[in-house]
């Protein structure tokens, strides 16, 4: 009796640690503590599960600890080696593994049922099937997201004609088969369950296939939410409260981030999933179409004698691995008394908040990182706004041109700064393929070239002043 009390107290504490850890994660000062607290909760839950009394258990500790040790070692090494630019890929893989685990667990329970080794209530069968389907979709969807993010698979390689219609048909087929397997009860048989698993795996792959690279922050958030839901469903199978709570918390986190990312792009989730940007045949920017270039020296002078400068980094900065050089420019300017800030759009980077991590890695203190509203306030009084590798998130068409595909998307109003310097490789339009009238504005100057090279040269100029 006493042991059951302590075991369950441990599970209760684990749940409290999860919730409290997530709570602490909401402030940069306490976030690290929060993560450690959540990890401690997980350790406690695992320990309690290993030691709790179970009737008729054969324990198999060698198998358990062996699997955990191998998995733990792989996870540890991966977490040390991954580059911060590759975080979206890593999170995608982990999402996928969580989904795969749920698939294996659900499949084992279903096999036991169909072999007559166990008995399941109707509701439990439904939950097992849900864990199987959601887990499978999460697994293949995440793996494809990883391959796309890593540039190993291009959109056009995996997209078929009428892919959206195909996806809708497949979704209906998957749901219909799930219901049918459920209605067969214990007579469905393992082969039918395997068939359902395969169909779900194919659907997961197919549902991510047509989603474009710019929409990846939404997809990763959504898959994160799915991985939580599959964990929660597996929790119902085993009647484990800690799994239910943990899974649902992750589901909630993923859902909130999905909604925030959709809002940041002014698009509905449905639009992201079945839409994708059209060709974007919007009217060309009005006014004169000449761009004005600025020399490195002039740009350096402009920055050096400014009172306040706002950098607007985009994914181009990360691709060029130029975060550290940007920080060097920041240091040189700050040393001269320039007030330097960074304006970060919510969808800058390839996952929610990605750009903040990249800049933190380059030692930029987080109070300098402004979110959308703070940055727009700062831009009103800024002397110079410097755009590095960003495009669509600083496009004035989003506010002025109802015909633009990104009309209504909240953007950083860099044009309200006195001067705008755009660091850009060429005049090619951005990821979404939309022309940007910002480049033709009177207070905009272009500084062409590779972001890292240009920033390095800029730093040299500043040092010589």
């Amino acid at each position, binding site marked *: 009796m006493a042991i059951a009390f302590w075991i369950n107290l441990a599970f209760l504490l684990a749940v409290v640690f*999860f*919730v409290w850890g997530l709570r602490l*994660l*909401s*402030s*940069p000062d306490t*976030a*690290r503590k*929060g*993560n450690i607290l959540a*990890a401690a909760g*997980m350790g406690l839950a*695992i320990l309690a599960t290993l030691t709790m009394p*179970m009737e008729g258990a*054969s324990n198999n500790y060698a*198998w358990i600890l062996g699997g*955990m*040790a*191998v*998995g*733990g070692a*792989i*996870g540890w090494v*991966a*977490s040390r080696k991954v580059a911060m630019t590759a975080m979206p890929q*890593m*999170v995608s893989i*982990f*999402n996928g*593994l*969580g989904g795969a*685990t*749920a698939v*294996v667990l659900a499949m*084992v329970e279903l*096999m036991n049922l169909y072999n007559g080794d166990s008995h399941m209530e*109707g*509701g439990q069968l439904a939950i097992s099937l849900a864990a199987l389907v959601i887990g499978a979709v999460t697994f293949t969807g995440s793996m494809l997201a990883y391959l796309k993010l890593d540039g190993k698979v291009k959109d056009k390689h995996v997209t078929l004609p009428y892919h959206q219609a195909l996806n809708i048909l497949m979704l209906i087929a998957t749901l219909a088969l799930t219901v049918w397997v459920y209605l067969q009860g214990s007579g469905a048989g393992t082969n039918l369950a395997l068939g359902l698993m395969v169909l779900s795996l194919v659907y997961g792959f197919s549902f991510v296939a047509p989603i474009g690279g710019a929409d990846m922050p939404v997809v*990763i*958030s959504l898959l*994160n939410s799915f991985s939580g839901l*599959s964990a929660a469903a*597996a929790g*119902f199978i*085993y009647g*484990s409260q*800690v*799994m239910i709570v*943990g899974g649902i*918390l992750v589901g*909630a*986190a*993923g859902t909130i*981030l999905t909604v925030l990312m959709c809002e940041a792009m002014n698009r509905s989730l449905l639009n992201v999933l079945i839409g994708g940007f059209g060709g974007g045949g919007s009217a060309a920017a009005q006014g004169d179409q000449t761009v004005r270039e600025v020399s490195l020296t002039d740009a350096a002078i402009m920055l050096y004698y400014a009172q306040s400068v706002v950098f607007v980094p985009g994914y181009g900065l990360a691709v060029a691995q130029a975060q550290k050089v940007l920080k060097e420019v920041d240091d040189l300017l700050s040393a001269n008394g320039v007030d330097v800030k960074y304006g*970060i759009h919510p969808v800058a980077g390839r996952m929610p*908040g990605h750009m903040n991590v990249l800049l*933190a890695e380059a*030692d930029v203190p987080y109070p*300098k990182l402004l*979110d959308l509203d703070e940055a727009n306030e700062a831009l009103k009084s800024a002397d110079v706004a410097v755009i590095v590798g960003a495009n669509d998130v600083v496009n004035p068409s989003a506010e002025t041109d109802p015909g633009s595909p990104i009309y209504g998307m909240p953007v950083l109003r860099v044009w309200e700064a006195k001067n705008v310097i755009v660091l850009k490789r060429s005049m090619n339009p951005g990821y979404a393929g939309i022309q940007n009238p910002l480049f033709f504005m009177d207070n905009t100057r272009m500084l062409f070239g590779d972001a890292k090279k240009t920033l390095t040269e800029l730093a040299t100029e500043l040092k010589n002043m």
Partner: protein
Amino acid sequence: MDTVYQFFLENLTEIYLLVFTVILGFEVISKVPTVLHTPLMSGANAISGVVVIGAIILLRLTPSDNYLMLGLGFLAALLGMVNVVGGFAVTDRMLEMFKKRK
């Protein structure tokens, strides 16, 4: 329909737990600032590795001579643990970098 009624009534506590966790989750997480969205996601991701608990329960209950089930359980424990350890460790690595002005 009867099975649905029955499931609902028999799992009433779990369903309450589900509902309140949803509310709690949205309350706690909606306050997280943009700066922390990536660590939040990878930390949450680590928590979803809680499925490893299911793998442990499964393995403990599997007869010691059922090698198919043992193998599948081993796989589940392995995958779940990659998610747990990797997730928490990488989140810690990221949060270590978030510093205030020196």
